């Protein structure tokens, strides 16, 4: 893992003390709320419906057990004993007191964490494939470049007042597990024809009010040019992005209005002045960062894992869990264990302090001290020996963390929605909870197979509804919660935006509607065909007819 150097330590500590002073001045009345608000947002502190909310950055979704224990400590000491893992691989604490926040940030700094740039019109926390470094299909670890981008973008003076927030995601494989096509910039590590490693650059994707799949503006960018090209892209956006209309300020609107080709040409022109300059990444600097992420040598293990196989043969619950929650690892004899934060009836992405501690303990003992947070609001233990998997499963199960549902209908993404969020129009969490209760039968879930339901409580789309196989968007109709349902969205390498299936349905009717859509799929599917596969084959009409017949 990356470790702070002296510069990082100094920067974060100084920021903590600066914010401590700002909070003190606010509480003494020397700063008004209008003056204080931009300062607190720069440090990830929001004021939500019921309380302040602190959003803590988890760079590229990687945590050590020590860091996870600190998150548990913060939740236990300063909050209500739980935290919420978000779709941007961050952690949100929903109930901190203003006077405590400087101490919380000081505690975080002791484990090399902070909340800088988790809000505001800046380059936000850079996200990456949660299987970075361990996925068998990876070309290179995307976290190396996510970290380089983090260092470049943190407190970048030119980009501290962008037209709007800016989100970058990096994936190291052709299979996209980081939703790069719906980010402001998505980077996909690839090889060119000569075998050199670089990036495909996708710009101008996004969700929200105007969802767009980002076009690729450069098929191949050499590694050394990463920062100069990003700087050129951000500079074009910073100059031309709209500042007159909040809803048209994201880079996707600029790219769309200019056209991808023209935007790309403008970036190339800007880049001409920047490339081969001070921003060029020297190979030894890449190697320096790479060394932080290079795994210590793995044990040479057999591919066979007798203990795991014995339990799998004799315990149907374990076998079912392995089927969904155990992924293949690039190293023989190791596996990736997915820790579901989607228990039946639970709030997606929530974990209690005790659960965070348990995951930290398991990581320390069994997973080379590492934990991952996925944008789908689950955790993973990336480096577990296959013969340790039974022990890990037992410990997770005892903590309510072994729901065998990764990628199934109950593995739902949901934003905090109107239960917590100041921007929301409708609730999202209880919609997810009711769905997980309706589909509680695990055999039925496994029979339905791969399906992604994503729920947002407003058009800002933190719950990624546009790219859900079934997307659910909460809207306010005359003070009542209604939900628009879309079908066929996808956030992977074949990214697509969902199609609206008909008029919005009332809060009480959402679960029935989803069940009708799922039953329609079950009745229409061919052997081995997923929900998305069937939808792409048969189209919207059968689903629309089934739903309208019932409503």
């Amino acid at each position: 893992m990356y470790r702070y150097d002296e510069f990082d330590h100094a920067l974060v500590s100084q920021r903590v003390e600066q914010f401590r002073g700002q909070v003190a001045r606010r509480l003494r009345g020397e700063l008004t709320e209008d003056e204080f608000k931009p300062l607190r947002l720069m440090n990830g502190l929001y004021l939500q419906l019921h309380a302040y909310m602190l959003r803590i950055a988890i760079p590229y979704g990687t945590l050590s057990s020590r860091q996870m224990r600190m998150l548990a400590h913060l939740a236990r000491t300063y909050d209500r004993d739980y935290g919420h893992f978000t779709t941007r691989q961050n952690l949100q604490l929903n109930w901190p007191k203003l006077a405590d926040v400087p101490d919380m940030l000081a505690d975080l700094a002791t484990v090399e964490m902070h909340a800088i740039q988790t809000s505001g019109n800046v380059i936000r926390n850079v996200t990456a494939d949660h299987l970075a470094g361990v996925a068998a299909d990876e070309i290179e670890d995307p976290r190396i470049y996510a970290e380089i981008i983090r260092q470049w973008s943190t407190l970048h003076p030119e980009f501290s007042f962008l037209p709007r927030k800016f989100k970058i995601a990096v994936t190291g494989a052709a299979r996209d597990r980081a939703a790069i096509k719906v980010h402001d910039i998505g980077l996909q590590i690839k090889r060119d024809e000569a075998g050199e490693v670089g990036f495909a650059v996708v710009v101008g994707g996004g969700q929200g009010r105007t969802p767009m799949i980002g076009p690729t503006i450069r098929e191949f960018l050499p590694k050394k040019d990463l920062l100069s090209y990003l700087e050129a892209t951000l500079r074009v956006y910073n100059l031309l992005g709209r500042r007159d209309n909040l809803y048209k300020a994201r880079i996707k609107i600029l790219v769309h209005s200019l056209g991808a080709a023209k935007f790309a040409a403008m970036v190339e022109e800007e880049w001409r002045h920047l490339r081969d300059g001070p921003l060029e990444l020297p190979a030894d600097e890449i190697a320096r960062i790479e060394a932080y992420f290079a795994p210590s040598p793995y044990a040479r293990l057999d591919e066979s894992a007798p203990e795991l196989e014995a339990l799998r043969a004799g315990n149907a619950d374990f076998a079912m869990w392995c089927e969904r929650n155990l992924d293949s690892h690039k190293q023989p004899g190791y596996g990736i264990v997915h820790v579901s934060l989607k228990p039946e009836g639970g709030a997606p992405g929530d974990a209690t302090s005790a659960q965070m501690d348990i995951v930290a303990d398991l990581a320390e003992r069994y997973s080379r001290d590492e934990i991952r947070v996925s944008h789908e609001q689950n955790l993973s233990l990336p480096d577990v020996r296959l013969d340790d998997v039974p022990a890990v499963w037992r410990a997770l199960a005892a903590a309510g963390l072994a729901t065998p549902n990764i990628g199934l209908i109950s593995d739902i993404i949901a934003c905090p929605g109107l239960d917590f969020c100041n921007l929301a129009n409708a609730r999202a969490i209880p919609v997810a909870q009711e769905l997980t209760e309706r589909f509680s039968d695990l055999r039925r879930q496994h029979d339905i197979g791969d399906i992604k339901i994503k729920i947002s409580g407003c058009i800002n789309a933190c719950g990624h509804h546009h790219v859900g196989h079934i997307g659910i968007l909460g809207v306010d109709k005359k003070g009542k919660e209604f939900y628009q349902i879309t079908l066929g969205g996808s956030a992977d390498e074949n990214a697509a935006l969902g199609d609206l299936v008909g008029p919005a349905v009332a809060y009480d009717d959402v679960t029935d509607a989803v069940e009708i859509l799922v039953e329609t799929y079950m009745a229409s599917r061919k052997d081995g065909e997923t929900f998305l596969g069937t939808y792409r084959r048969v189209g919207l009409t059968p689903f629309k007819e089934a739903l309208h017949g019932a409503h």
Partner: protein
Amino acid sequence: MTPQKLKIVTANRLGDGAVVYLDADGDWSARLGNGWVALDQDDETALLARAAQAEADLLIVGAYSMEVARLGDGLAPTSQRERIRSAGPTVAAGEVPAALPATPRRSA
């Protein structure tokens, strides 16, 4: 003639962000039911002026007026947003559901 909408003034407490309402005694209370009701525009303006002073006195932040309806002897919010602000989240956030089995459940 459209009946005058009843309004009260709400805000978040500065120290912890908790939802509070300006009550009939001029205090900031967590209980909506005792809210000081503005019957007309002048009342509302006067209540918002009190709220501005409370902001200056470092008690509250982000004050605004909101619609309520009479409910028995008390008041109730008319929008879902304000119902949730008043009563708290509708979900037992962070709790591991009591129904959660110790090991994954499998149907018969």
